[in-house]
């Protein structure tokens, strides 16, 4: 790899997985508490986008008494611009399987699931093969653990953890009220750890090398590396493992096409950052980063000056209007009204000031929608309308 990259590359996730048997055996020889402490001191945060501390999640679930507990690997990767989880599952499946089994050991679960989105059906066969090899080894070392694949059927909302449980229970994928949280009341009402594919793959790295190796990467409050799915107007689209905490201007210098007008950080549910704010924005969880820090599930979509931000927003809102589960009014009606609203302004049927009413509506959705989908529509809506207001009108 060339040393001239502006943003430093890392290589943990896709590095060989040939030693998974050793990592599994050695980790099973440690106490659950040791493993939890390893995760806590690594400061690993969930890589699906929400950033909940992984060690704490495992700890909370391990402390609950229950006849049955579950581990679920969330592979319902549906956020526009994200495609890293598929790559992990096809290139290093044993890392993920090992992590699922170790989580089971820590919390006291005998069964794990991989909820795989319907769009990734083609991964299923290879993954099943890996699982049977994995389970065979578990039997050999007398560790009783089963992993099943549960297929989704084309619903973005099922990536929301409680909607995912509903879906696995044979129902419409409608999010539940929280609390209770999955750690206490998850799949079938049992304590459940649900982690993103990438989060689990990082736990493998942490158990293999120890927490320090991971902790030393990244910056304060945003430790370790992260996979970024890079697409749009870039000469090098693809998946890259980068340290958290980089500044967006370095990112754009590295991955842009010299004409980058804006970057969408975190997919359609994330934020659009215009060129003038690149240098004041860092990628990572809130903390001591330069300027504003934006968390992300790793979706980075670049737009150059040939792109209309109205078309971008229109595309997102169509997406949300279709993928809203329809359960709560703010999201069901809000998404449709935002979409209708920007079209009306564009056509001149509503005055430009109507955009301010729509911004109010987006804010209302942020406060009143039941789940992350409806709440996060305001992220992209507000950041696009505020930064590219003239493009919405003319």
């Amino acid at each position: 790899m060339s040393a001239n990259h502006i943003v430093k590359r890392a290589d943990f996730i896709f590095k060989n997985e040939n030693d998974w048997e050793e990592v599994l055996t050695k980790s099973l020889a440690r106490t659950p508490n040791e493993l939890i402490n390893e995760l806590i001191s690594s400061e690993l945060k969930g890589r699906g986008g929400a950033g909940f501390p992984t060690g704490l999640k495992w700890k909370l679930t391990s402390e609950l008494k229950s006849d049955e507990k579950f581990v679920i690997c969330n592979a319902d990767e549906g956020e526009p611009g994200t495609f890293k989880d598929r790559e992990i599952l096809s290139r290093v499946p044993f890392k993920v399987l090992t992590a699922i089994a170790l989580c089971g050991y820590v919390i006291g679960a005998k069964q794990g699931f991989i909820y795989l989105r319907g769009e990734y059906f083609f991964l299923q066969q290879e993954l099943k093969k890996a699982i049977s090899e994995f389970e065979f080894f578990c039997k050999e070392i007398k560790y009783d653990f089963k992993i099943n694949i549960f297929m989704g059927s084309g619903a973005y909302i099922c990536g929301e953890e409680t909607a995912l449980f509903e879906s696995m229970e044979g129902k419409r994928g409608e999010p539940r009220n929280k609390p209770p949280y999955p750690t206490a009341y998850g799949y079938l009402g049992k304590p459940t750890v649900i982690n993103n594919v990438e989060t689990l793959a990082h736990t493998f790295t942490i158990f293999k090398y120890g927490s320090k190796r991971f902790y030393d990467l990244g910056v304060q409050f945003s430790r370790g590396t992260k996979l970024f799915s890079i697409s749009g107007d870039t000469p090098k689209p693809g998946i890259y493992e980068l340290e958290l905490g980089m500044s967006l201007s370095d990112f754009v210098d590295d991955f842009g096409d010299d004409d980058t007008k804006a970057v969408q950080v975190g997919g359609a549910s994330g934020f659009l950052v215009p060129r003038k704010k690149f240098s004041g924005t860092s990628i990572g969880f809130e903390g001591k980063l330069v300027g504003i820090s934006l968390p992300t599930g790793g979706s980075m979509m670049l737009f150059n000056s040939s792109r209309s931000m109205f078309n971008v927003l229109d595309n997102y809102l169509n997406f949300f209007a279709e993928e809203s589960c329809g359960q709560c009014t703010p999201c069901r009606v809000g998404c449709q009204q935002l979409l209708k609203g920007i079209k009306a302004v564009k056509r001149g049927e509503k005055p430009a000031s109507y955009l301010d009413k729509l911004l109010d509506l987006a804010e209302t959705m942020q406060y009143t929608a039941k789940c992350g989908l409806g709440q996060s529509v305001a992220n992209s809506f507000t950041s696009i309308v505020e930064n590219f207001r003239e493009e919405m009108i003319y």
Partner: protein
Amino acid sequence: MKPITELVKDLADKHGRDRRNLLPILQGVVEQEKYLSEYSMFEIARELDLPVTEVYGTATFYSFLECKKMGKYIIRVCKTITCSMKGERQILLAIQDMLKIKIGETTQDGKFTLLETNCLGFCHKAPAMLINNEVYTELTPEKIREILGSYLHDKIIGGEHVS
């Protein structure tokens, strides 16, 4: 092709008759039939001892569980932002031109249905589409003609991840 009643019974034997087995059973019917007819929903409800409204409610929630008759090959073209920026329109035009159907329609011979879908997770290789479970990426009108040509003769060219 198994008769629906037998198919549903086999699927229930395989997956179980709990509510939590509903999705795999619905998926199993769609795998063979390409869609869920009213009749198949009745059969599933009867086999699992569920109200048919519950089966209907679940089935209609998921975009890959079609509830109207589909063609043998369901084409789903990704329309989300990156694919839309990288030429989804040209891809749709090429398909429509070749098959003489619009979005949402099925060819006269029942072979192809054309649909749009949301993000397939191949943004770095946009534009992308699925035909049944097979994914095709970095599409161009030329590639479309080649791929659909292979389906027309039932000699399917493999997609992205077929080994």
